[in-house]
């Protein structure tokens, strides 16, 4: 119990002690003199801020000392100016003398002195705001003007010149935030001219001595500007007349320079200028004369020398060793087969196929092997057979020639295709005949066989193999068309020694059919068996199998029979070659189906009119029976 009581008492003492700290007595806080002000330079007042009172009643005293004396005086008046203030009346105020003022806070514990402040009354003057601010709206020639007038503050003695006040006023529309300030100098009135009609304005004035502080703004004075309308009509009339005058001058100037303006704003569109063209002639109606200058003298060409135009020609030249090197000439339409290497023939190739070098004895009637002439040109139809066809269907035409002879002239070669035209599209793939030491490409375009045809088929670009094919095909088409008329069959007689034949010249039994047809025969190679592998050049390479050469090897000449017929061995083209081109497939398929498909002239299909049933690698016969050509195998 005692312990508890002691604890309680202890707690109470602690509590009170803590509480008593807030009420401990101490020296008063240090007061501070905030400011001293004089409204008229005759009296002044000083205010101070008391510090903490230290818990005890504190009294404040203000003491001052004047500059030239050491006497300390106390504030004469603590009440006039309110609390914590000291008012110095006129008797106590001396101008141009420094006052040293100190405030002392005193309580029971002690006194605290404030920091002294030195003042000179001249420099602490803050006057009262001006009084009686009046605003009068007057009319000056129908323009409203405002005259604001005021009086100086009452206490400030400006009449004796003791104080010189400088005024400033500000004005604003009712409701706005921004004031418009105007310094007014020492005058007591001010005029304002820029006013809105019907607006309500507020105006305030303040003042300050030449070396002092600004007074507070006076109370707002409201005034309203009555609505007005400008009565100055005379000026407007003058302005209108002047504007009309200027306008007339402008119109006149524009009229005078209308032409120039038009050109400036809308530049003329330049007309066409054609050299030598006279517009006047056109206008006069003589169109012929007008256009005469346009007509060139050299167009259209008056003379058509087709032969000159044709540039492609075949050049056949025989390499030294073996085989024929045929160079495709540019003169396709000419159908001239030109041999580069041959020396004996000076002819460029035209018509050289008609020469004796024909290998094939073309017989018109009897011989079954004939060359179909195609006015369109092309190849002998009979010769056309695709090796990919079923051997049964096709005639194996073999053209076997020894092309190794360098002396084989173009003419000789030319005749070959006339004999058998199985120019197959040869892929670059395997050649069955293989051992040919050389790959010889032979394009034989027989001029004799190939009359210039106005084929719409392409004018093949010179040197292009496809052209050959096209012609070839055309030729083949031509063969089929009844238009072609006569089919001439060429009986191909092959011989092992075709070359010999060639050397001999035109074999007697070889007769060219009178029909002239051109065809392309491409000799792929010449094997060592003295076989010339002829390839038919597809004309349809452009369609999408470019550069593709169907290597249908037909012309494997097995031999030449007694009848001077060429035994042609048909070669089986590899299967893959058959699928090279869809066109080819079509062809092949067509051909396989029918063995002898006829197609329209537009189609470039190679037909190999099967003369006889041909078996692969078999000699179907020494003859290419022309009579068989017209008959489908199936």
């Amino acid at each position, binding site marked *: 119990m005692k312990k508890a009581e002691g604890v309680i008492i202890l707690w109470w003492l602690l509590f009170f002690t803590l509480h008593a700290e807030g009420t401990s007595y101490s020296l008063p806080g240090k007061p501070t003199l905030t400011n001293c002000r004089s409204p008229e330079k005759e009296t002044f007042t000083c205010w101070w801020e008391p510090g903490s009172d230290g818990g005890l009643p504190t009294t404040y005293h203000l003491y001052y000392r004047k500059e030239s004396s050491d006497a300390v005086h106390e504030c004469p008046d603590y009440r006039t100016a309110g609390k914590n203030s000291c008012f110095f009346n006129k008797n106590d*105020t*001396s*101008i141009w003398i420094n006052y040293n003022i100190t405030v002392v806070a005193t309580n029971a514990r002690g006194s605290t002195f404030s920091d002294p402040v030195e003042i000179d009354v001249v420099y602490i003057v803050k006057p009262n705001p001006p009084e009686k601010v009046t605003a009068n709206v007057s009319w000056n020639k129908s323009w409203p003007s405002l005259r604001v007038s005021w009086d100086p503050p009452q206490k400030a003695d400006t009449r004796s*010149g003791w104080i010189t006040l400088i005024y400033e006023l500000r004005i604003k529309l009712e409701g706005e935030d921004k004031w418009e300030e105007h310094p007014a100098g020492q005058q007591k009135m001010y005029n304002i001219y820029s006013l809105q009609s019907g607006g309500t304005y507020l105006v305030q004035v303040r003042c300050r001595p*030449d070396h002092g502080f600004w007074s507070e703004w006076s109370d707002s004075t409201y005034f309203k500007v009555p609505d007005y309308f400008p009565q100055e009509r005379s000026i407007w009339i003058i302005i209108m007349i002047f504007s009309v005058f200027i306008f007339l*001058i402008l119109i006149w100037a524009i009229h005078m*320079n209308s032409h*120039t303006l038009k050109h400036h704003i809308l530049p003329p569109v330049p007309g066409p200028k054609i050299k030598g063209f006279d517009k006047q002639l056109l206008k006069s109606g003589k169109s012929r004369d007008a256009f005469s200058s346009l007509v060139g003298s050299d167009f259209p060409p008056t003379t058509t020398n087709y032969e000159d135009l044709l540039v492609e020609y075949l050049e056949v030249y025989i390499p030294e060793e073996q085989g024929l090197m045929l160079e495709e000439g540019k003169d396709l339409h000419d159908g001239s087969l030109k041999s580069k290497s041959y020396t004996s023939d000076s002819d460029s190739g035209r018509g050289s196929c008609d020469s004796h070098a024909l290998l094939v004895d073309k017989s018109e009637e009897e011989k079954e092997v004939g060359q179909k002439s195609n006015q369109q040109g092309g190849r002998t139809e009979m010769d056309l057979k695709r090796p990919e066809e079923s051997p049964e269907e096709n005639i194996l035409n073999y053209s076997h020639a020894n092309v190794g002879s360098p002396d084989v002239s173009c003419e000789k070669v030319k005749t070959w295709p006339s004999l058998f035209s199985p120019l197959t599209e040869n892929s670059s793939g395997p050649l069955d005949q293989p051992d040919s030491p050389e790959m010889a490409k032979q394009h034989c375009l027989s001029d004799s066989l190939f009359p210039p045809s106005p084929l719409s088929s392409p004018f093949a670009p010179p040197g292009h193999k496809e052209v050959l094919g096209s012609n070839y095909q055309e030729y083949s088409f031509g063969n089929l068309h009844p238009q072609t008329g006569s089919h001439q069959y060429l009986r191909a007689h092959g011989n092992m020694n075709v070359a010999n034949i060639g050397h001999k010249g035109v074999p007697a039994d070889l007769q060219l059919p009178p029909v002239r047809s051109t065809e392309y025969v491409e000799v792929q190679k010449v094997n060592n068996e003295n076989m010339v592998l002829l390839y038919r050049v597809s004309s349809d390479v452009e369609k999408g199998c470019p550069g593709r050469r169907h290597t249908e090897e037909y012309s494997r000449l097995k031999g030449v029979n007694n009848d001077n017929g060429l035994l042609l061995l048909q070669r089986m083209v590899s299967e893959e070659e058959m699928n090279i081109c869809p066109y080819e497939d079509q062809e092949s398929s067509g051909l396989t189906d029918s063995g002898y498909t006829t197609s329209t002239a537009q189609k470039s299909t190679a037909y190999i009119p099967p003369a006889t049933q041909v078996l692969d690698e078999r000699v179907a016969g020494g003859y290419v029976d022309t009579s068989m050509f017209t008959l489908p195998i199936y």
Partner: protein
Amino acid sequence: MFQLKSWPQFVLLPLAAGVCAVWVGMVCLVFCSRLSGMKAASICGNAQAECHFLSLANLFDRVIQHSARMHGISNDLHSEFELYFLPSKNQVSRVGRNCHTSNILTPNGKENAQRIEREELTEVIMKLLAAWRDPLWHFHQSVARNHRFNGYGSNKSLEMSDMAHELRKGVQKVVEKMQTLGVISNSVGGLASPEALLAADGSGWRFMKDSDLLYCFRRDSNKIQNYLKILKCRIVPEHGC
């Protein structure tokens, strides 16, 4: 764009002249209508007396403006030199400051200033101006020599000195005018009067510091300005008082 060359000459010249004439005429019309309300302001009326008084007031205004400008310069210099005179901000020394013009009795209040006679007031002004002629020149020399002050201080001190000199001459003219007008009696001594010389004698200013000199002159220039204003409003009150 406008091919003026294409216009015939006989059309162009009269047209230009006509346009100019019309334009000038209209401008004149506009302005003349406004000018009709203006009146020529005459500085001096026909009456001699008005003119004299007006001129005295004008003289007073000029002198007052001059003194106001002088006080402004001294005020600027004082506020600027307070930075340099920081050590002298000692309150004790400040209180003990004693201007060399303290012996000149100057009214310390409005009543005193209004009670004093105009001649006496004029005398006070004159004494003050006389008392500051040499110290200002000395002050300028001191400021110019002192490297602490920049060129601005040197220029201003020179200007202040010159202005004080000019103000003395101006006030002298005003006094002469007033004596001519009979406003004040001729008992007012000129610059060469013995009172003025005695007043200006005190060499106590030589022992004053520059800061004190500046402080004292700032106050005295304010006194001069104020006294001149009082004098003016007492003699010619109708103009700006």
